[in-house]
């Protein structure tokens, strides 16, 4: 006979304000098999867990139902508590009466009724729970970092310094990412290259780090501790071992008409190129869509002049398979496309540029050698207008609803640096709010206003168009002064919203890592597990998780690394015992389960089976519990009901349904 204990949590007022917790406990006590029911303010607290322990001892409980928050929050807490007090942890069931009940309902009567039903279902299920024993699986002591920007580099360095091997996969020809495109960095104005390039060199030289640049993740298999990843090394057409990085090929390449991605299209590059002078590795790639030889078979200039004989037009993409214990996503961001923001005239006027383009213009290694000019005619600007929140905090469905977080600070930075170089400049900044939370951030912004005399105007720009004299006409409103503004400018800089890099959806689906409506990767818990994905073994670093500046990115990169180090330090991981199991008496050998299994955990072979008293040798399914992740796909696909998921058996699910419908 089962002896079930029910524990109803108030969660402060989170549950108790909407659900009559006392009544839930009283009603569930009347359920058959329930011998104990009580409620408590915080069941997850030390005192709450002790209540459960005491009841286990006093009432000799054989199963426990906790009516509380989502199992994602505290299932583990209560399982551990049960184990401590002598009950198999898999004899604990959670009825989620917070996220799925109290938080979403207003009517107390209805919510209480629903909480009772959810509790009843959990009781019905726990009656059929069997004690399960967790197994172990080995850990491959190597990490994969996807993305070679500052986030990826820092994560890789921290993991490697702890003694573990790390691979960085970067899809562009060089590591460095967005930060390598920047001029100076707020709030201390160090030059981005001066603080980034040493880290790039360190990552390249580190004996534990392997760089796969001009490469992409192609396929991900396996699970935490034992991922198998296919990496596509795209054909570089330049032999990494032979190339000396002399740069002669780039200088002599006759085809120089491709927009330079690194300079955001402000100038052109050759078909064989390294994105920037400090690129790592300092080995060029040939853009096969631009190269005359690869397209027509004529030219071959680079091969002729390369003294090292490094050019190989016959190169092919190569796919290699590597094993990892953990994967860190550090895929970064890009600025949004401005096709839907024609009021700013970005697509129709060359002198309207994004802030990232301005970074390239201000950068000494940029297309103008650091001289800020009007892209339309190369003249020096006299008036510059900055527009903040272009596509950020947008309520028109054209941009992003969130704050991109970095724009207020970099705009203040750009304004001050411009004033330093060109003191005669007239600079206006249009803003909705100036947001500068961060160490020494507000002081930085105030310096722009007070010392540099940058004109901040609260209001949005409605239209940027070409004035009759060829300058730009900016129409805007000044909300504090309640007046319409029309001013002429020579350059308009748009603080464009940032979004996760293109391709992050593909990466996320390969990793089965969840993303939000804005394509940012979701963390396992917004406050308590900010650098982990809900998918075990997947970690998040940098802007792929949400907008961040460089200091925050570096901090998060370190945090992600420490989580990876914690994982890789273990020799074995405890596996989830809720795996599929085949009842071979019923199995008819149809292979449906094998076909649907996403983890390749099911195989078929001839086995001796006793069916209805007779021995026979027949083809039946076997589950490799080390590979099975307990997704349950096979149990649905099995036509004869032979496949069952331990801890979530068909009988248990139906018992829950029955209890709900009763």
């Amino acid at each position, binding site marked *: 006979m089962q002896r079930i204990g029910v524990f109803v949590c108030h969660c402060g007022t989170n549950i108790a304000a909407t659900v009559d917790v006392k009544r839930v406990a009283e009603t569930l006590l009347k359920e058959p098999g329930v011998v104990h029911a009580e409620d408590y303010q915080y069941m997850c607290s030390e005192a709450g867990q002790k209540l459960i322990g005491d009841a286990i001892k006093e009432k000799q409980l054989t199963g426990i139902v906790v009516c509380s928050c989502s199992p994602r929050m505290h299932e583990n807490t209560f399982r551990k508590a049960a184990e401590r007090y002598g009950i198999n942890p898999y004899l604990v069931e959670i009825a989620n009466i917070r996220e799925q009940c109290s938080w979403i309902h207003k009517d107390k009567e209805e919510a209480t009724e629903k909480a009772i039903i959810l509790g009843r279902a959990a009781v019905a299920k726990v009656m059929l729970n069997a004690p399960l024993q967790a197994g172990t699986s080995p850990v491959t002591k190597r990490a994969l970092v996807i993305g070679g920007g500052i986030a990826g580099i820092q994560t890789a360095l921290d993991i490697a310094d702890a003694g573990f091997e790390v691979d960085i996969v970067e899809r562009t020809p060089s590591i460095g990412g967005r930060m390598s495109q920047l001029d100076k960095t707020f709030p201390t104005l160090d030059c981005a290259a001066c603080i980034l390039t040493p880290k790039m060199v360190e990552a390249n030289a580190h004996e534990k780090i392997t760089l796969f640049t001009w490469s992409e993740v192609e396929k991900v298999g396996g699970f935490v501790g034992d991922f198998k990843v296919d990496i596509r090394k795209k054909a570089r057409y330049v032999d990494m071992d032979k190339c000396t990085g002399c740069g002669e090929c780039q200088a002599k390449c006759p085809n120089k008409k491709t927009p330079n991605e690194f300079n955001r299209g402000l100038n052109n590059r050759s078909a064989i190129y390294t994105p920037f002078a400090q690129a790592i590795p300092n080995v060029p790639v040939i853009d096969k869509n631009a190269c005359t030889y690869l397209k027509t078979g004529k030219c071959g200039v680079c091969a002729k002049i390369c003294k090292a004989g490094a050019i190989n037009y016959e190169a092919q993409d190569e796919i290699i398979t590597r094993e990892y214990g953990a994967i860190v996503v550090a895929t970064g961001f890009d600025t949004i496309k401005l096709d839907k*923001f*024609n*009021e700013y*005239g970005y*697509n*129709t006027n060359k002198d309207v540029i994004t802030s990232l383009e301005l970074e390239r213009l201000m950068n000494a290694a940029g297309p103008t050698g650091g001289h800020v000019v009007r892209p339309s005619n190369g003249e020096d600007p006299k008036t510059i207008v900055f527009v903040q929140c272009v596509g950020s905090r947008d309520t028109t469905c054209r941009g992003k609803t969130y704050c991109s977080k970095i724009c207020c600070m970099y705009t203040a930075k750009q304004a001050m640096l411009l004033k330093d170089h060109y003191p005669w400049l007239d600079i206006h900044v249009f803003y909705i709010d100036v947001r500068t939370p961060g160490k020494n951030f507000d002081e930085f912004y105030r310096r722009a206003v007070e010392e540099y005399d940058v004109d901040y105007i609260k209001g949005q720009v409605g*239209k940027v*168009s*070409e*004035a*009759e004299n060829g300058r730009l*006409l900016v129409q805007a409103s000044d909300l504090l002064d309640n007046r319409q503004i029309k001013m002429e400018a020579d350059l308009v800089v748009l603080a464009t919203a940032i979004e996760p890099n293109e391709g992050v959806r593909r990466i996320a689906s390969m990793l089965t890592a969840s993303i939000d409506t804005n394509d940012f990767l979701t963390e396992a818990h917004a406050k308590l597990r900010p650098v982990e994905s809900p998918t075990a073994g997947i970690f998040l670093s940098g802007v792929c998780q949400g907008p961040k500046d460089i200091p925050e990115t570096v901090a998060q990169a370190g945090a992600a690394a420490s989580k990876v180090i914690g994982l890789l330090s273990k020799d074995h991981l405890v596996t989830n015992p809720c795996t599929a199991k085949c009842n071979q008496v019923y199995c008819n050998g149809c292979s449906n389960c094998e076909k649907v299994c996403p983890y390749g955990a099911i195989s078929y072979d001839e086995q001796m089976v006793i069916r209805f008293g007779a021995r026979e040798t027949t083809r039946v399914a076997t589950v490799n519990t080390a590979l099975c992740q307990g997704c349950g796909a096979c149990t649905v696909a099995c036509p004869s009901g032979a496949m069952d998921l331990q801890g979530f058996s068909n009988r248990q699910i139906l018992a829950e349904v029955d209890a709900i419908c009763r």
Partner: protein
Amino acid sequence: MIYSYFPGCTLKNKAKDLDLYARESAKALGFELEEIPEWQCCGGVYPLASDEIATKLPSVRALADAKSKGQDLITVCSACHHVIKRVNDDMANVNDIQTRVNNYMGLDEPYLGETTVLHYLEVLRDRVGFDELAKKVTNPLTGRKIGAYYGCLLLRPSATMQFDDPENPTILEDFIRAIGAEPVVYAMRNECCGGYVSLKAKDQAESMVDRVLSSAKAKGAEELITACPLCMYNLTKNCKGEGMKVSYFTELLAEALGIKEVQS
């Protein structure tokens, strides 16, 4: 193809050219405009009071009439188009307006925004096609530098009007190209002409018109076209200085199709 046609009051008085050449050109282009019987004034401005239904009724009557014939509803006047399109949107999406209007109207079958509302230019672009139009042009307006003046009513609110990109529209420029002339793109082509402010503050309307005209002239436009009688009024009556030639787009359409005699 037969369309229900809502000409609107201005087209029966001040803007007869807009109406006449729309009908004549339609025949040449192979579609027919069937005037809605006993249509009533659209009201001129879309009522912004959210509890207002009386001024929406004329639009709904026209829309329901078109629905009963299974025809799409065409307008030429920007103001009529603006009002009818927005009322139709309310009838499709705003529950309160739907209920109250239908309760009042007492139609056999409630009207719930089923009719498709098209501006004449949309018919040219989406039904006839500018390429087809160009083939039917017998008298191309070669060498004429024409600035398109959009005004505001056709473009905004863009989510409802669904006419063209409100910041960088192209439909009138494509039209100008189709009739053989050269479109002149200028910054103020989608700015307000002043609208009804000319009744109250003429000088203000003048300064707004002045901005439009000087912007167009600076870019080399020699004449303007518009679809809106109110824009036409402001651009021609409230301009300082010598002004500019302004025509309805249908006049030039008829001219290009060889229906209208070329004015000297």
